[in-house]
């Protein structure tokens, strides 16, 4: 019961806080519209919003898929080849430090204005968090497991895939969670740089016309999408690591007898 009510209550609470902020800070409508106005716009512009949301969702999902796969593969390679790591890690960090924005023209030049460039953006933005998390996870395998695997005649590949990888699953889960929450930004930023569909386009467009209510409605749709994504990924991540104690649940019982 509570489980079902909670999201509702949270949503309501946020809306109330939002309204309060609007009242208290006297934020003008064109900077921070109140929730009622935004909800109204949300309903009146629903078909438009959905049309653009669908595009963005596809971009996010593709970016997430690509970014995760690439990140995982990079982390695996980094761990496998020590020399590669010493050479490539700095490159990765540099690559991350370059704002994708700056690369946008180059990406447009190569990938055009279509979906490819946005997927590339989302991928780029996800790539590093996933790589870093997986790499850290893969690197910190308990030494005993690896020693055991070696005496069991495990090839490097088997060690990587069957020992390091499962041992890194919790870290991988963390990385994925972060990636999921960053991916929408990637797609939206991609759309900002150049596009004619998607929520990012809609937001920028609405912003340019000072239809801030529409912009916030788009933001709302984006947030709901991101939330749904996050909790799905969270669920998957937990399913992948059933052996984790998740000790918070039974955290401070103590007095049970």
């Amino acid at each position, binding site marked *: 019961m509570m489980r079902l009510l909670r999201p509702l209550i949270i949503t309501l609470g946020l809306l109330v806080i939002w309204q309060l902020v609007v009242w208290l800070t006297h934020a*003008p409508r*064109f900077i921070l519209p109140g929730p009622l106005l935004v909800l109204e716009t949300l309903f009146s512009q629903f078909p438009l919003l959905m049309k653009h949301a669908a595009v963005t969702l596809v971009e996010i999902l593709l970016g997430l898929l690509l970014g995760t796969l690439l990140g995982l593969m990079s982390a695996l390679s980094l761990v496998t080849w020590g020399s590669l790591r010493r050479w490539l890690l700095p490159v990765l960090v540099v690559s991350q430090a370059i704002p994708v924005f700056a690369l946008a023209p180059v990406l447009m030049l190569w990938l*055009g*204005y279509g979906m490819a460039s946005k997927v590339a953006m989302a991928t780029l933005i996800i790539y590093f968090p996933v790589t870093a998390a997986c790499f850290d996870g893969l690197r910190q395998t308990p030494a005993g497991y690896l020693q055991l695997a070696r005496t069991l005649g495990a090839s490097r590949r088997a060690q990587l895939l069957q020992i390091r990888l499962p041992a890194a699953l919790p870290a991988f889960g963390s990385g994925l969670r972060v990636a999921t929450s960053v991916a929408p930004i990637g797609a939206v930023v991609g*759309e900002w*740089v150049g596009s004619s569909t998607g929520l990012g386009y809609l937001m*920028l*467009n609405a912003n340019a*016309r*000072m239809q801030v209510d529409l912009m916030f409605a788009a933001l709302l749709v984006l947030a709901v999408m991101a939330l749904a994504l996050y909790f799905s990924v969270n669920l998957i991540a937990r399913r992948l690591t059933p052996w984790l104690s998740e000790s918070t649940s039974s955290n401070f019982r103590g007095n049970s007898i």
Partner: protein
Amino acid sequence: ADKVELLLDWFINPDHGPLIIAQQKGYFAEQGLDVSLVEPADPSMPPKLVAAGQADMAISYQPQLHLQVDQGLPLTRVGTLVATPLNSLVVLKDGPIKSIADLKGKKVGFSVSGFEDALLSAMLHKHGLKNDDIELVNVNWSLSPSVISGQVDAVIGAFRNFELNQMDIEGHPGRAFFVEEEGVPAYDELILVVNNAQLNDDRWPRVMTALEQATQYIVNHPEAAWATFISYKPDELNTELNRRAWRDTLTRFALRPAALDAGRYQRFGAFMQAQGLTKANPAVATYAISP
């Protein structure tokens, strides 16, 4: 039909009226052209992509063209969409700033386009101020909000047909100082540029013909033209702001899109050079033609 990929400078707005009308009324088609309009979000991108051969034609600004040519981009102006400056310095109507001279010690917001400090310094100069007398702040996409909310005292780069209406709708009417009245030579706000490699392409005269037809239609039938304009994207374009902006833009469309006033380009080029934004002021024929 011959394909033309045309990159706009920004989201579709009344400034693009002739293009939309030509598209909707079939003037492009009559010329045997299949024009696709692409909206970017960063106005500095389209000229670059045309220069890189990624698109056929782009909307740019005349001051930008001088910068671009100076930086070696192979671009040439082949037409004009809006033949007067739209740029203006906007302050709150009932605010403390009554004249440019009042700006001393104030903050001026701008949306980076590369030459607003030149415009500004010309305007300040006329009123006996220097660039150091004000503080320039990049406010990016928030020109009117930043001035309404008092974060800055004035903004440069506001379009008189757009931001003024926007502020009015929000209940904070603004006052515009028009750049061409304050010491900046007149220039074409919106122009069409193509890659030098395609200079003699016969599509450009046809585009200009279609634009000319569209502009005439707009001038002759403003209300019908408005209906045609919003029919392009009914759920996005039909807004109060656009309606007002449309009215204010009507008078500013170039009636002869292909026509080139070489002297005007020459004068503005000299202005840019004098402001230190460009290294040279090449012959107009090298970067602007009438196709």
